[in-house]
């Protein structure tokens, strides 16, 4: 006969405790859970993310109905226990059900504390605690404009941010001069308030609410200083009140909450309490980590496992509001026997304080940059001696070696506070599912899936669990999530093994997905054509939409059409035709592009081939990873300073290099004199004309990360410029990573290496010859598509 275990409550702490019991011994108890909410248990701390629109209700379920069924747990939901009859060892519900128990756990949690001011029962006054509360707030945001949140603590600020995200005008009322006074000191609180004000939150500080007024629905608040504020919604976030009444009525010892010993036992040895309804050594906790720790202890106790008992928790806090990076743990305020290490950078809005007593960290407050939070908090919990650190270095970011010591973390320790994921869960998932990257761990365990602050710890656990097999850079340099092989390893293998098709490459090299993903499909297509220009047939299905459709997709699914204008030149006839076509097809935007061509933006997909046909112009390849344009100045043809015919040289360069695929897009420039009107020193390849020849530059970028060109050499003829350009482009084609611009490529392979290869005339000739071989396999894209019925067919939309 199994023992009967009854739990009053169906919240996070209770469910976690049951999970832990099942893990230890699934057959020991007949389990009944009684919860008064009409849901399976859910992750309450994620409600603020639901309100902020970052996740949905269905995503925050911890255990769905099936979990109860699978584990043979009888769940009585939407029903409340009204009485514990200790003599008879049974509980009675409001529906009159009588349920006997051998062991009873009270996990009733707590309720939002509602200020007992006049008007608190008006319509539009809510707490922030349950799914219903959240739904009421979301509904209110649809109909009303003004909200007031009473309470500038963690929950209040998260609620306020969520209401702002839902379009409401929000005031936060706080009794004290500083926000989050339980977790932050004055300095950090001021920085937080400033950042939140920037996000549009308004504050009424040091205001005591005396009355909520309104007829039926709330219309406003009055404060003790005689001022008032209007609103249509009041959210009370002034604290929680443990639901301890059931224990008090049963005659258990109750202080602020139901009192328990280190084994979570109440004054009746057959009744236990966990979570927010329990008071341990005078403290009733309201954060998730301690509740989980209590649940684990209780599971040990009930299943007869050895346990040191619950020793209390040191709390740490993070705020789930974007743009406010903060961490707080342990003691907050200086006292007579603590010393503070403080770093403050007012320019960046960063504030860091570590409180030290007897050479041990006892408190951490970080604002603006909380990346060290986990490491410092772990030093605090382990009571590490910090004598060996110089004071300032305690605050330094963890280097490779002084990183988080995950080896000494216990399996029960919570890594991800948002989703309550422990180290043990993560290690288990890594081993069971063979996970190797942070993103995989996130997908399976949800660790790091909310605020993402614990990413560093998760990666450290991966490294610790997998040992040498873990490569933190794998997510960046492995070609994609299908393989851990780098670009060079893949290209080398294609060369060596003589592989001919992307499918062959993926199978032979053991790609995880036989058909690849959106990252490696275009990359393999590029590498194969680069390596085998004469025989490999381009695979349109492997191309990203822009290159497949020969136009840039816009955010509404329309496309852009940018015709070629060599060197930025055009003719009156072409301009008139562009204008007429743009009018005929109602093109919403005609614009000179960044690459000095005329662009037609917002062309409907089915019109794209017609627009091409009527323009009778070549594609400008404004969508492709290849040469976009050569920017020119007018040069010696018209300019009084021009030293050479930079315009003609630019046009020739563009004609000779266009169309050929490169690892990423390329831009070039030719300028007629050192005044550099064509801005060529931030191009992938730049030419500065001077009296005695042409100075060549390479590796520049004016985009994402500005990089000035390095100088290559000076040549004397136009032919040499063109040959050098071809050799340089081919070198980039053969050694660049797909998706890598020339600027990072040059930094990666080295400026001197590129120069060395291109100083060798023999190499230059061979590279240029290989470039020309490849170029001969390309056909102008738009005319090629117009001639091919199947390709034209890609633009039609069937109407039925």
């Amino acid at each position, binding site marked *: 006969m199994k023992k009967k275990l009854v739990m009053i409550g169906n919240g996070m702490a209770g469910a976690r405790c049951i999970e832990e019991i099942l893990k230890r011994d699934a057959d020991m108890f007949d389990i009944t859970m009684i919860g008064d909410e009409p849901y399976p248990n859910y992750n309450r701390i994620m409600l603020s993310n639901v309100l902020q629109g970052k996740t*949905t209700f269905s995503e925050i379920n911890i255990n769905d109905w099936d979990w109860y069924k699978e584990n043979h747990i009888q769940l009585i939901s939407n029903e409340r226990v009204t009485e514990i009859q200790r003599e008879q060892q049974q509980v009675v519900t409001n529906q009159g059900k009588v349920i006997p128990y051998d062991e009873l756990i009270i996990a009733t949690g707590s309720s939002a504390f509602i200020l007992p001011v006049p008007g608190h029962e008006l319509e539009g006054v809510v707490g922030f605690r349950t799914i219903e509360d959240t739904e009421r707030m979301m509904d209110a945001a649809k109909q009303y404009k003004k909200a007031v949140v009473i309470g500038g603590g963690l929950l209040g600020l998260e609620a306020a941010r969520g209401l702002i995200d839902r379009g409401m005008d929000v005031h936060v009322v706080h009794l004290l001069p500083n926000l989050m006074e339980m977790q932050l000191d004055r300095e950090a609180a001021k920085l937080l308030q400033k950042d939140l004000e920037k996000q549009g939150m308004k504050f009424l500080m040091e205001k005591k609410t005396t009355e909520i007024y309104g007829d039926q629905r709330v219309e406003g608040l009055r404060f003790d200083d005689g001022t008032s504020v209007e609103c249509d919604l009041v959210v009370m976030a002034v604290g929680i009140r443990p639901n301890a009444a059931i224990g008090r009525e049963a005659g258990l010892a109750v202080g602020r909450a139901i009192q328990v010993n280190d084994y979570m036992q109440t004054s009746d040895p057959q009744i236990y309490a966990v979570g927010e309804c329990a008071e341990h050594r005078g403290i009733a906790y309201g954060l998730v980590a301690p509740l989980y720790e209590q649940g684990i202890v209780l599971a040990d106790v009930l299943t007869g496992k050895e346990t040191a008992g619950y020793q209390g928790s040191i709390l740490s806090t993070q705020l789930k509001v974007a743009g406010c990076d903060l961490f707080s743990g342990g003691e907050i305020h200086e006292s007579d026997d603590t010393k503070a290490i403080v770093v403050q950078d007012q320019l960046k809005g960063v504030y860091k304080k570590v409180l030290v007593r007897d050479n041990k960290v006892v408190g951490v407050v970080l604002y603006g940059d909380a990346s060290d939070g986990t490491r410092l908090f772990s030093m605090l919990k382990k009571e590490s001696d910090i004598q060996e650190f110089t004071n300032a270095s305690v605050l330094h970011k963890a280097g490779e070696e002084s990183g988080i010591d995950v080896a000494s973390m216990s399996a029960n320790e919570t890594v991800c506070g948002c989703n309550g994921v422990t180290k043990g869960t993560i290690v288990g998932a890594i081993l069971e599912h063979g996970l190797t990257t942070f993103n995989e761990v996130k997908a399976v365990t949800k660790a790091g899936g909310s605020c993402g602050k614990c990413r560093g710890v998760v990666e450290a656990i991966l490294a610790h669990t997998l040992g040498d097999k873990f490569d933190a850079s794998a997510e960046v340099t492995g070609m994609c999530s299908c393989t851990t092989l780098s670009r060079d390893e893949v290209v080398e293998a294609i060369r060596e093994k003589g592989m001919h098709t992307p499918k062959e490459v993926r199978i032979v090299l053991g790609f995880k997905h036989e058909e690849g*993903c959106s990252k490696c499909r275009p990359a393999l297509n590029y590498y194969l054509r680069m390596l085998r220009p004469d025989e490999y047939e381009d695979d*349109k*299905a492997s191309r*990203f939409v822009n290159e*497949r459709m020969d136009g840039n997709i816009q955010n*509404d699914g329309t496309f852009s059409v940018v015709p070629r204008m060599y060197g930025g030149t055009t003719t009156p006839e072409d301009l008139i035709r562009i204008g007429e076509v743009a009018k005929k097809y109602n093109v919403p935007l005609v614009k000179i592009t960044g690459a000095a061509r005329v662009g037609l933006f917002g062309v409907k*997909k089915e019109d794209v081939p017609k627009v091409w046909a009527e323009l009778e112009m070549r594609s400008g390849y404004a969508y492709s990873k290849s040469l976009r344009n050569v920017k020119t100045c007018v040069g010696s043809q018209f300019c009084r300073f021009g030293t050479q015919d930079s315009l003609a040289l630019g046009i020739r360069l563009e004609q000779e290099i266009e169309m050929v695929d490169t690892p990423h897009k390329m831009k070039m420039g030719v300028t007629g004199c050192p005044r550099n009107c064509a801005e060529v020193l931030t191009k992938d390849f730049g030419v500065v004309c001077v009296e005695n020849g042409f100075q060549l530059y390479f590796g520049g970028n004016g985009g994402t990360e500005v990089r000035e060109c390095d100088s290559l050499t000076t040549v004397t003829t136009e032919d040499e410029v063109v040959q050098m350009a071809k050799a340089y482009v081919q070198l980039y084609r053969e050694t660049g990573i797909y998706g890598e611009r020339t600027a990072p490529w040059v930094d990666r392979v080295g400026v001197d290496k590129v120069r060395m290869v291109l100083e060798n005339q023999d190499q230059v000739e061979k590279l240029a010859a290989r470039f020309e071989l490849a170029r001969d396999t390309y056909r102008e894209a738009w005319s090629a598509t117009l001639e091919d019925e199947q390709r034209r067919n890609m633009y039609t939309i069937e109407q*039925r």
Partner: protein
Amino acid sequence: MSTTMNMIKVIKLEDLAIQIGKEVHVKEKSIAIFRLSNGDVRAVSNRCPHKNGPLAEGIVSGEFVFCPLHDWKISLVTGEVQKPDDGCIEVYPTEIRDGYVYLGGL
């Protein structure tokens, strides 16, 4: 038989290139049809749940399409968005008869 009665003839099978999506408008709905490399024909709503990206233009790998706007990965079999993103799109049953693709569920 009643299920086939409600199927709508939309396109010739041979007009569907393998792994290249096709946009069709049926009853004012925009639907993306795909012919997978294993020969299956799948049809889903042509709107990514994220920012309405036109899924017909996405890269297709196995049973998945990658949205062309922000690379969300979506199953063409279940309609489910793959982790770490979340969501779901409508999936329509397909049938091949006499070389034509028929759509149901509309």
